[in-house]
């Protein structure tokens, strides 16, 4: 059981890692048609994420694999229950990957540019809506399977959370572009960053109020748990720091602020749901919790050893590669 808790945290860490890293390159994809006005600028945006986006996306695959290994019942119920949504995410990721590598010289390939934008935007929105459903809870039958329909997944709370995630990713992407570019492109990115940040702030407030009304028990868990307060603090620091940094034109701090915002939100969701991974709507006893869906002790232990060996290596060489590509790209 203690290993089950460890894995609950680790899956959360992997999801946060995905949101932090792939978050900014998804954001760049969403901003791409709006802030880049010339072939050179489009090229600069692609180049800014070119060396790293593929590694960033692996965080999603790792989170999926870890969920499969540590909580097979959750993986099975969520992926089959969200069938059409997951397939749509999948096609988005395929189009994005191929358009990033095959995109050709910008301006010559409107189709690839569109695929890059749509792939990024729809994937970001859907992943946010999926997270919204995990927070709200889904209908679960007596057999532990999803017992609703596709349209059950779309409702006010999940859409607000989805839009909040989208705004968060746009802020994060714009912060990245500010760090990596210069001149007119950076200026436009900074304007987008500021505007999106206000929208994000508004949505965080709306999402918080909706959650307090619609899922009061999760909201109560967050404010009664000290870890919940840490997450709230991280979110607030992130929001304030990012705004402060934008006013002072300090792009590094703005990116860190945006990263804190992401960590805070993922943390709040994780604390609110604990110990459930997927709460069951209206039938709490059917919720998929750590206790009723974790893998065997041996599997969790083996996975933990694997992670303790691999994750430091991954973090080490990822840092090395980010350092190698440090600095502005040329437009």
């Amino acid at each position, binding site marked *: 059981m203690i290993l089950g808790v460890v894995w609950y945290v680790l899956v959360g860490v992997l999801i946060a890692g995905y949101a932090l890293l792939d978050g900014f390159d998804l954001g760049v994809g969403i901003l791409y048609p709006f802030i880049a006005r010339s072939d*050179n600028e489009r*090229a*600069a945006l*692609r*180049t800014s994420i*070119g*060396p*790293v986006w*593929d*590694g960033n996306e*692996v965080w999603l*695959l790792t989170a*999926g*694999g*870890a*969920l*499969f*290994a540590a909580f*097979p*019942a959750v*993986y*099975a119920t*969520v*992926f*089959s*229950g969200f*069938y059409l949504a*997951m397939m749509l995410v*999948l*096609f988005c*990721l*395929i189009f994005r*990957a*191929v358009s*990033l*590598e*095959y*995109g*050709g*010289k*910008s301006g010559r390939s409107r189709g690839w540019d569109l695929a890059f934008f749509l792939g990024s935007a729809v994937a970001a929105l859907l992943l946010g809506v999926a997270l919204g459903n995990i927070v709200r809870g889904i209908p679960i039958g007596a057999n532990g*399977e999803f*017992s609703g329909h596709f349209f059950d997944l779309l409702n006010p709370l999940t859409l607000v959370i989805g839009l909040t995630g989208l705004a968060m990713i746009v802020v994060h992407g714009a912060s990245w572009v500010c760090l990596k570019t210069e001149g007119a492109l950076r200026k436009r990115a900074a304007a987008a960053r500021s505007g999106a940040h206000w929208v994000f702030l508004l949505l965080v407030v709306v999402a918080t109020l909706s959650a307090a009304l619609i899922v009061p028990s999760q909201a109560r868990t967050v404010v009664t748990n000290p870890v919940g307060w840490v997450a709230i603090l991280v979110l607030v620091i992130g929001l304030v720091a990012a705004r402060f940094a934008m006013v002072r034109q300090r792009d590094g701090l703005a990116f860190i602020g945006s990263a804190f915002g992401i960590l805070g939100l993922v943390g709040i969701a994780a604390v609110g749901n604990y110990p459930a991974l997927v709460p069951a709507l209206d039938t709490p006893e059917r919720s998929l919790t750590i206790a009723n869906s974790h*893998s*065997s002790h*041996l*599997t969790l232990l083996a*996975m933990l050893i*694997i*992670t303790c060996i*691999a*994750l430091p290596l*991954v973090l080490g*060489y*990822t840092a090395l*590669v980010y350092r*190698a*590509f440090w600095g502005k*790209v*040329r437009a």
Partner: protein
Amino acid sequence: MDAVLLARIQFAFTVGYHFLFVPISLGSGVFMLLAGRRWYKTQSENDKAGYLFWLKLFSLTFVIGVATGITMEFAFGTNWATYSRFVGDIFGAPLAAEALFAFFLESTFLGVLLFGRGRVPRRFYYVSTWLVVGGALLSALWIIIANSWQQTPAGYTVENGRAVLTHFWAAAFNPSTLPRYFHTVFSTWVAGSFLAAAVAVYYLKRKRHTEFAKRTLVTAIIFGLVCSVAMPVIGDWQARVVGKEQPVKMAAYEGIFKTESDAGLLLFGVLDTKDQTVHAKVAIPGLLSWTLTGSTSGTVQGLDSVPQDQQPPLQATFASYRIMMWLGIYFILLLLVGLYLLIRKKLFTDRRYLTVLMWSAPLPMIAIEFGWIATEIGRQPWIVQGLLKTKDAASSVVPAGQIVATLALFVVVYALLFVVWFRKMRKAVVTGPQETIETGYSDTPAAAGAVAGAAGDLAAVPEEVKQ
């Protein structure tokens, strides 16, 4: 059509498609590595061009492999939820380990290869090439571990209708893991060698890049021959494991209806499932018995040892296995002729041989696909040998209509991707190893301002433009 059959068709299509690109990545990776090593040692412009040529073929293929690989990781949960619940305790770990140990490695350092030339130290760049190729080989190991556990489960016990891990190493290195891993990796190297040979012949015939072409052709023939000859040796090892662990599959491969001693290794035959016999049989007497039991008169279990509902579809298993085997023999013979011509110094001038060699390039891919079809269909009706049947493993909540819709989308999108990939590959080969991949990041930091952008797109720009 029922949902399980549709889910099977979707899985077969998406995994069969994915596995067109994996062998080309793994195979071309070896040639990229050799070219990279050469460039690292000589630092000549020609060798740099040769390396960049292989990098381009590798990365064009790799990205499709990555994109279509995500489908597979999702598919277990989306389409095979009951399977995932049953095997999650064992099957999930290698998938997670694959991501942690292999995907991160290959993806991160491919970024260095595509964008880091001149930006990172020479040695860093060279080591990155090794890490990308090594990552791909590790990835293959983890996924073969997962698949092999379906074939020959070990290190587990069944509790409350779920397989539960009892011994990590026994499950990971179950009886069929290693032979199947080597069999797979060597087959991709054969495929890479035939691809390299085809490219080389294309240039030789047009008298372009002659030096590069000759060197590549010699490497391809020697390396391809070594790997092709290794295949039956590994195959023999694997056959013994199949004969012991999955005797019904072996009986289906060889068309053995009744348990017999003194079983021959079938070279040719027409399977007749109605009369339960093989017509027009050409076999090496006693060889199968000898392979499986160590004695030419050893007993080989026949299909009659299990009820019919535990037998795989016989024609499909039998035929795909035969196609794979004949093609394997053909590769050895063809490359032996190449070696003979090389020794007699006629290799580069024998146009007829070169033509046959060039047009044989797709055949290893066909052999690989049929090999997988044989091993996966041969396991039926089981999804996990002896433990869980395929018909009981699909997602119960996904309606057939949704599977049809997504299957149609897969067919359209994948067909489109194939056309795009093929055209890019063709263009890369026609252009040849004289041009370079623009990185967007400057080759030398000092010249950064002079570099025009456009990167990530692998666009080809002549070397002179850069400096």
